[in-house]
């Protein structure tokens, strides 16, 4: 790494001579090395799935979840360093309550993503170190349809049709591009997300992993929820069967 030893990577407030901020690039690496997270927007909803790394067998089931609600309508999924992501989630929930106090209506997904992005930027530059975490924000309503945002450690905030972050993001994005997303309903998205995550796993390295999903769409009446266990395991069964079938054809 050319940045090390130059002195330009010691603070997030220092630019390198060619205009890069190495501290932020390191933080981005923390997300890049984490469990793969796939987010898909279909015709009537949004699904986010993560291949969660289980770091100890002693944890209880569903420990350290990565799917959350900011309010009833907006889902948030955190990728990367867990405590950093959790701090972002706490901030987002606080903002949602503040919004409800001031405007007496639920905060929108776009407002939440923007607010978290701004917080990340200010915190990184002026307060402490970068966040080693990224956050997806998802929502669906009848008028605007599905919406999906990703906020990155740099404070960048884009809206996507679909995206992937984490370890196998390149392979995941290649798979996503093959999908006809605007024809898929929420149930299809759950299955396809499970298939992509299982397909791109490294059988030898990714051992203690578990899929966790969140969904929001017409089927949940615009409320974001963690996908129930029975739906999830049905999707995994479908994905495994589908992948086996594909192998046979080859």
């Amino acid at each position, binding site marked *: 790494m050319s940045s090390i030893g130059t002195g330009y990577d010691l603070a997030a407030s220092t630019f390198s001579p060619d205009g890069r901020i190495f501290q932020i690039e390191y933080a981005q690496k923390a997300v890049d090395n984490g469990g793969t997270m796939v987010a898909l927007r279909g015709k009537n909803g949004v699904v986010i799935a993560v291949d969660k790394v289980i770091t100890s067998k002693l944890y209880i089931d569903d420990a350290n979840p990565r799917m959350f*609600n900011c*309010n*009833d309508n907006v889902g948030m999924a955190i990728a990367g360093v867990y405590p950093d992501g959790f701090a972002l989630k706490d901030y987002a*929930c606080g903002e*949602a*309550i503040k919004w*409800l*106090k001031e405007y*007496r209506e639920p905060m929108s997904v776009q407002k939440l993503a923007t607010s978290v992005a701004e917080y990340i930027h200010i915190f990184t530059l002026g307060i402490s170190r970068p966040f080693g975490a990224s956050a997806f924000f998802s929502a669906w309503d009848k008028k605007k349809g599905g919406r999906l945002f990703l906020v990155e450690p740099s404070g960048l905030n884009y809206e996507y049709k679909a995206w992937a972050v984490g370890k196998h993001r390149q392979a995941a994005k290649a798979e996503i591009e093959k999908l006809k997303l605007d024809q898929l309903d929420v149930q299809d998205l759950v299955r396809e997300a499970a298939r992509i995550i299982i397909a791109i796993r490294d059988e030898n390295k990714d051992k203690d992993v578990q899929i966790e999903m969140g969904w929001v769409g017409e089927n949940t009446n615009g409320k974001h929820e963690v996908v129930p266990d029975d739906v999830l395991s049905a999707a995994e069964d479908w994905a495994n069967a589908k992948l086996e079938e594909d192998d046979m054809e080859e």
Partner: protein
Amino acid sequence: MMHHDELQRTLNPTCTGTSVIAMQYKTGVVVMTDRVVSYGKTARYKNVSRQYKVNDNVLVAFGGDHADFQWLQNVIERQALFWKRFDQEIGPKALHGYLTSLLYARRCKMNPLWNTLIVAGIEEEEKNNKETSTPFIGVITQKGCAYQVKHVATGIGAMLLNQAVEDSWRKKGGDITRAEAEAVLKKALELTIYHDCTADNDFEIGSVDSEDGVNLGKEETIIGDWSIAETNCQYE
């Protein structure tokens, strides 16, 4: 003349709701309020609900200042959202405790919330176990004085109705059905429209049941028996 560091408090509520009447039955709670908000003694706003659904287990009804209650609705809404961050739904007991502290703190600041609140609901001892869940009615007065009851009438209804409501309750030995509880409430409402000039004959009965959850009642009307008016000598 006011000194510069003095401040004046609101000494009277403006737009108000009158009595709330609530009663427990075997598996739930029924709450009755009329649907008028008064400005002094004028029936200023008709067809206004005085009940607020918090979630599937809790209902809050109010008497007193309507503006304060609208403010409280937002406080409650935020508290419910706060609980959801920890994957929990706020229960009637906890909300009753929270609102008690809030109303008491406000009166200690010499700036009370001008409401009598009824927190009604189903208290779940264990999540999703209907066997162990119990009906709950909690009252909070303007000054933060709080208590739990099996049945209650607030406001001017406390003077007029508590005895009548309690008599009906005891006649059934405390073991009454939902239909019987609703009948008692309706009889009590009939008494308020005779005696309380700010009470209205348009009303609603909300309920919280361990099976059905919260149901905000439909608007209903009662006529009553006005034949006795013939013998009233005060008007022609």
